[in-house]
């Protein structure tokens, strides 16, 4: 697993060079934006069921047959597995967002996920739909961290404006979608 810092280190080691002033500019920016990243991760962690469970429920509401006998979310054991998976995917997205690097999501969550779903007969189309809803909800919550009814005080004390990092969070969900598709 890598984060933004160790990603730079691994790149420099491949060249056998030190990390000098030229390489540090982007990392300094990363440090300057640390509060935004931390507050955005916190925003996800405080809205877990609002993002994950609602996304899975929403996906089921669009396909009511799923909870009927013969559907993929029948009986409740399979619905529970679906809810759990939504939360797991969201958890790895939150790690990736905190690290500033997708490797934790790739290595520990997405690697082999599509093959597992195919083997278990999970309908990929519906899984992708649930991830899409999670993406929309996450972007909305992160964008809204510093205003409106969901405003909250981030770890930085006065609440960072996390709007700028919403696109990065969305890119991790896109990564999940493209690896499943």
């Amino acid at each position, binding site marked *: 697993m890598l*984060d933004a*810092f160790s990603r730079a*280190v691994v790149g420099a080691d491949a060249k056998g060079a*030190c990390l000098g002033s030229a390489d540090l500019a982007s990392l*300094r920016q990363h440090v300057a934006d640390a*509060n935004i990243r931390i507050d955005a991760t916190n925003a996800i962690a405080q809205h877990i069921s609002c993002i994950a469970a609602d996304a899975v429920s929403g996906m089921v509401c669009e396909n009511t047959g799923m909870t009927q006998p013969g559907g993929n979310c029948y009986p409740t054991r399979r619905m529970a597995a679906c809810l759990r998976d939504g939360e797991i995917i*969201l958890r790895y997205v939150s*790690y990736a967002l905190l690290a500033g690097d997708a490797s*934790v999501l790739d290595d*520990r969550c997405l690697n082999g996920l599509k093959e597992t779903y195919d083997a278990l007969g999970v309908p990929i189309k519906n899984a992708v739909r649930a991830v899409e809803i999670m993406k929309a909800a996450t972007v909305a919550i992160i964008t809204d961290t510093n205003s409106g009814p969901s405003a909250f005080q981030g770890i930085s004390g006065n609440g960072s404006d996390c709007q700028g990092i919403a696109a990065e969070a969305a890119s991790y969900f896109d990564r999940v979608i493209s690896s499943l598709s």
Partner: protein
Amino acid sequence: MKSAVTTVITAADAAGRFPDISDLKAVKASFDRAAARMEAAEKLASGIDNVTADALKAVYSDGKYDIATRDKCARDINHYLRLINYCLIAGSTGPLDEWGIAGVREVFRTLGIPTSAYIEAFSYIRERVCVPRDMDEQAANEFKDLLNYLINALS
């Protein structure tokens, strides 16, 4: 690769939980120290050849070690300083542990390399760091901590 942030994430993942407040505080604490660490890394990167040359001169000054090994010793000191540069960036001893310390005892013992030469070199570098000529006090502390860590690992 172990770094300040990946250590926190690895622990959270092992417990199967989302990053909680204490995780986020740990990450924030490492970001707060990042400016000093980066300064140390930057100064070390720009002066690595001079630092290596100085340490080498000190180690070989009293004729205790065979002068024929000089070039290889210079290469190794440079290598370890580069790993310290990485550790300063990563905010963890991960790069030193994984690329410089794991297996080093076995290598030195098998090849009959005197570790004392390296310990002398890194101790010399540690003593020679001058605040504020070379870097800020906090940056120097981060740098010296890693030198101490390496010296202890080689001892």
